């Protein structure tokens, strides 16, 4: 439950109004980062169903077309859970690179589906900014989640 809960907390954090000019229009995809992290490290604790539900909650809260975030997070979860073993003895830089690629694909899919469901091409610039922010902030979130994971192991 802890991983899913941590993703939910990050989702709520991404909704907190921040008084900075840039961040109010473009937010990093915190849920994407955390779903990726947990699926790589503990796929048994963050299942596909959990990713689906988190996506659903995100769509409900942010007012996006229903189903899009669920689809994206579900694909990210399944892909990274299957490739998790590959990263076991690799350095963090490799993981970061992998995330940068996954995030690019994920945000593009999200953009495509959202545009299709809304019925108009959404502007591309916020997407690029959001992607850069997401890729750049990944180490920070990964660090926090590593702490959470270590704390979790102590209790098991």
């Amino acid at each position: 439950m802890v991983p899913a809960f941590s993703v939910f907390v990050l989702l709520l954090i991404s909704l907190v109004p921040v008084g900075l000019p840039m961040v109010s229009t473009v937010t990093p995809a915190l849920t994407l980062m955390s779903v990726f992290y947990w699926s790589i490290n503990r796929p048994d604790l963050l299942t596909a169903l959990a990713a689906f539900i988190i996506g659903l909650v995100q769509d409900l809260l942010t007012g996006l077309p229903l189903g899009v975030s669920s689809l994206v997070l579900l694909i990210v979860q399944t892909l990274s859970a299957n490739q998790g073993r590959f990263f076991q003895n690799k350095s963090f830089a490799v993981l970061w690179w992998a995330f940068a690629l996954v995030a690019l694909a994920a945000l593009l899919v999200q953009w495509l589906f959202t545009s299709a469901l809304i019925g108009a091409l959404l502007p591309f610039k916020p997407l690029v900014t959001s992607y850069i922010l997401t890729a750049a902030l990944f180490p920070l979130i990964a660090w926090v989640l590593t702490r959470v994971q270590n704390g979790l192991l102590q209790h098991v």
Partner: protein
Amino acid sequence: MAQHGGPQQRIFSPLRTAVQRFAFILLIVSTFGLMLLGKADTVLIERIRGASTDLVSPIMNLASRPAATINDISAYIENLANLYEENLRLREENHQLLAWQQVARNLEHENARLRSIHSFAEPPAIHIISARVIADMGGAYAHSMMISAGSREGVKKGQAVFADEGLVGRVINAGYQASRILLITDINSRVPVLIENSRDRAFLSGDNSDRPVLNFLTADASVSPGDRVLTSGHGGAFPPGIPVGVVSSVSETSVRVTPLYRRHQLEYLRVADYGLDGILADPDRAIPQPPAADAAPNPVPGGLGVRPLDLGDLNNIVTPVPVVPDLSLVPEPAQAPATPPSGQTP
């Protein structure tokens, strides 16, 4: 654990993979099902959205408080940096506003006199509900916010939402204790507006960029950068005369408007219960309620930006006036946006 293979493991492992694969396909199918369901835009989805907003609103209400403190600190630093320029600008603005105040007072008197001559039907008073911004659903895809007032406070879907500076958006989803607001920059937002000086009517359509587009302008409309844009009140969805933005660029293909508010500084918003259910009313709802008697104690003139300090004996006038009245309008007060929306035809 699962790593140690045994006879059980050999039997159950392929089975488990098959179940997982099946579950994955099932979930993928249900995401597409959700997309179809969401596209149909049923009342059910709206209820669920409202309920989920309600569920997280207590958490967001707490979580947004430290954020508000950070806002205050960053605003403080920003203010310190710009103190001198800001002071100069405010002095100048104050001069101009004093002049406008005089004009407004004169016009208030004149309006009152003219209204007593004509039998003028007064539009309903606006009942204001104030609420705090508790969440900002920023991001590349949606421009919406959550406020800490819902149907409990009288917020209903379709009501206009504005900040001190001007129109911010409308209520798209009202929960019990929190509601979601669609900003005018969102791609789903359409606001009937008019250009302040030329009185040309248009639609302000968001496209998820910072600056929404003016649509459906007539061919002979005269628009230039710097023109102010106000709500027109057509369709009964928004009260007339609320400032919306300033025309920022005019090109062959599009006219863009910069909203008056700054999104990252929005902290408290006001919801206008105009007493009209507007075009956005649920068709299955019963007869629209007339503004209740308790709506009366808080009447505010429709021109919300500028309000003379001393209204004196004019307090009983609750009809909207243009925010920055144009002197050229004085000879023909019937043209002011204060006329009931249904009475105007383009």
